[in-house]
């Protein structure tokens, strides 16, 4: 039974080419009043381009954007004009918030709507209007404190209020849950439902299939610039969507039961006194051969300190750290790498590769001083290139060749390059910090497969992730980090999303209450 909703947005035959690349290929899309449409697609599928056309940042080569006016009649939107898009009631909540941190919520919301020729500011009418928007939407936030003092969830509410204040009838949300706890996500979904019930049309862009299934009315899937499918959410399931996105069958990552071996890494009451949000307090953890230990938690709760400790970047300020059965005396990244820890950094662009250097040099970066790659201080380019060619082949790194500058690679291929660099050295322990963040499903599957293969081979893995689906699918045991503290590990099979979410949020509630 198709919904007889009035159409508020119609994209017709949208085509956009960048040189030889067709980013959007004759896309047709309708959005009804009060509908939540999930827009799905891998990186590079054309989601961002499509939204940029909608907002007038790009001009489509072909096709038109039609928006319903106040009378409900569809009229073409002036192309290439963000002002026209705003005036037509299109609002956007970006993944990375666009708020001025030193201004209050109120100031952020009215920013840009005031005349620049007025010297004084009268906040009365604005405050009344925001009050009404808050009452209607059920979104509440303290308007009079600087945004820098708001939590991530509250900032997002300010972003949504900003769009609603401008009378948005169509709201585009770009991966809105990426920064939220499961509880905050749930509360966002309640809000989205309420807003939709009042007639707001929502385009929800996400990677997380579980959320898409939970919140959307309809799903549109883009692949390679074209719309490859559209379905009513009630008829869809996780597997069918994933396959539509990737265009082939997605092998499920399965963990085979396996008895863990000797302890590789042992932390006993270890603290790290790092800078703000980089502290680890009295953490105890053991990682054994052939198991994956997952570390769950909302970003910024001490995962960075734990990762820095295991990567060799930070030294403990207290407690005992044993590695491969011996106490650690030398905290040095190079030493840890040579000792057999494969380290996958959280920020692969910032900490993972030197963008200006070639793929070959980046593959060899950890081993420049190893005898295989140098003789008397002179690099052996033959050996380095051969290693890089093997890495490109075995790890399917898509690049023109080993002499390409690493910065020209996509995020997924940079991650494959790092995997090749660290996993090809027969490590005994793997530190994977947010290894699939920002990757598309194909690359995610590849990372998961590699981590599971390492586990099969008897390697111990520490998997730090914010993606609960990933953690529960891969980990044997999971510990939760809150406020720099690490919980006991629990068998992953006994944990569900709700329990984990409560543990992740637990400490923060205590903090707010205190």
């Amino acid at each position, binding site marked *: 039974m198709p919904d007889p909703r009035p159409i508020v947005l119609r994209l017709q035959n949208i085509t956009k080419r960048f040189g030889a690349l067709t*980013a959007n290929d004759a896309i047709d899309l309708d959005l009804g009043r009060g509908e939540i449409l999930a827009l799905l697609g891998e990186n590079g599928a054309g989601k961002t381009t499509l939204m940029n056309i909608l907002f007038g940042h790009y001009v489509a080569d072909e096709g038109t954007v039609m928006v319903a006016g106040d009378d409900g009649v569809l009229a073409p939107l002036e192309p290439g004009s963000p002002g026209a898009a705003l005036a037509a009631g299109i609002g956007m909540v970006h993944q990375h918030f666009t708020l001025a941190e030193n201004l209050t919520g109120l100031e952020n919301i009215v920013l840009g709507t005031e005349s620049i020729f007025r010297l004084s500011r009268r906040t009365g009418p604005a405050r009344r209007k925001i009050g009404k928007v808050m009452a209607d939407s059920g979104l509440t936030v303290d308007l009079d404190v600087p945004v820098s003092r708001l939590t991530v969830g509250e900032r997002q509410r300010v972003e949504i209020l900003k769009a609603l204040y401008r009378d948005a009838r169509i709201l585009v949300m770009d991966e809105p849950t990426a920064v939220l706890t499961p509880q905050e996500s749930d509360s966002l979904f309640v809000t989205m439902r309420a807003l939709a019930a009042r007639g707001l049309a929502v385009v929800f862009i996400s990677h997380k299939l579980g959320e898409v299934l939970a919140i959307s009315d309809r799903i549109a899937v883009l692949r390679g610039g074209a719309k490859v499918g559209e379905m009513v959410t009630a008829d869809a399931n996780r597997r069918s969507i994933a396959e539509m996105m990737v265009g082939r069958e997605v092998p499920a990552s399965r963990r085979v039961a396996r008895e863990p071996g000797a302890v590789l890494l042992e932390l006993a009451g270890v603290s790290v006194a790092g800078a703000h949000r980089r502290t680890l307090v009295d953490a105890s953890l053991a990682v054994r051969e052939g198991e994956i230990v997952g570390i769950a938690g909302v970003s910024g709760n001490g995962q960075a300190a734990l990762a820095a400790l295991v990567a060799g*970047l930070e030294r403990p300020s207290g407690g005992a750290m044993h590695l491969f059965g011996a106490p650690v005396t030398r905290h040095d990244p190079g030493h840890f790498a040579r000792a057999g820890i494969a*380290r996958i950094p959280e920020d692969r662009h910032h900490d993972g590769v030197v963008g200006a*250097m070639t793929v070959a040099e980046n593959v060899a970066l950890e081993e420049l001083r190893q005898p295989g790659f140098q003789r008397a*201080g002179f690099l052996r380019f033959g050996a380095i290139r051969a290693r890089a060619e093997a890495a490109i082949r075995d790890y399917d790194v898509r690049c023109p060749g080993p002499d390409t500058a690493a910065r*020209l690679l996509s995020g997924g291929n940079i991650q494959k390059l790092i995997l090749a660099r660290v996993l090809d050295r027969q490590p005994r322990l793997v530190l994977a910090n947010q290894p699939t963040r920002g990757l598309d499903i194909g690359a995610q599957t590849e990372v998961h497969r590699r981590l599971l293969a390492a586990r099969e081979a008897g390697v111990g893995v520490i998997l730090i992730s914010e993606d609960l689906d990933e953690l529960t699918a891969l980990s044997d045991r999971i510990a939760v980090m809150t406020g720099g503290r690490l919980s006991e590990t629990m068998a992953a099979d006994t944990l569900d999303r709700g329990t984990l979410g409560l543990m992740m949020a637990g400490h923060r509630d205590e903090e707010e209450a205190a």
Partner: protein
Amino acid sequence: MIRFEPRQNLSPALAIAAPVAAGFVALALAAIPLAFAGAPIVEAYRLMVEGAFGSLFAFSETLTRTTPLILTGLAAAVAFRARLWNIGAEGQLYAGALAAVAVGSGLIDGPPIVMIPLVLLAGALAGALLMLGPTLLKLKFGADEVVTTLLLNFVMLLFVQMMLEGPLQDPMSLGWPQSAPIIDSAMLPPLLGRMRVHSGLLIGLVAAVAVAIMMRRTVWGAEIRAVGENAPAARYAGIPVTATMVRVALISGGLAGLAGVGEVAGLKGYLTSDLSPGFGYAGIVVAMLAGLSPLGVVAAALFIASVFVGADSMSRGLGVSSYLADLIVALSLLCVLIGGFITRFHIRWAGRAARTVRP
């Protein structure tokens, strides 16, 4: 509206053409102040070219000027590659000269085969040590090396003056603040008969080739590039960032110190406090003109030296100020910076046909 889009890959031809074009633009722009000074412009340019390249003697003078610029240019290029902003080549040059005089003006005597390497080593060591301090302060406490190295230049110059009026003053100088002369066996031999160009030029060329090989072919070079381009990633990969920075500091300071040795032991024969007309600072321009390429430094040093020598001869011929040379050097730095920006980006006039980077 203008859009700037980063170029994917800079072609080698463009990387060379851009600074060459910038040099010519700078020379062309010099016509404006020349016109203001009332000089006949065509004649002025002719005198400049003739002054720098017009005869074997003119060219040998240009090469004499090129010699220290190659070494200070290399000093800046190596350091800047690692994002170590050594602005102190001027001071390191004086430190090198001072050490060469201290060792080579009679303290010890020996055959040239001993003495020449000895003064070179002493000079390089002094320059290197002078750069070590600011680098350690940067690594330990985060002290900005731009400030510390720049200020050390003045400290070093005053120290040289103090030494020239004290312990190192030549007793035969009748009170002039100058050092005792370098002994003959420690002097760098001249290259062309009675002309001033000396074998310091060869040292500069060898150093340029050696630095080029080091940067491209060795573990050290790869580590320096990694640290300079992305220090966090280098550190994460286990590259010893501190050791690399110290190594760069020593190489950079050492090269600048060698420039000082060349000036006293190749050219002047004794040390005065006006040994360098700013070779250390000009080295920064040379390095930027060269795009930090060690072999490019040689070409850029030749260009800057010919501007100085040519402008000198022009100012003598026409009676305009020789500060014009400084002006051209400054203009060429600006032109190179602008040119570098232009070559890194495609400039597009946005319209309907505006192309944008793939999201």
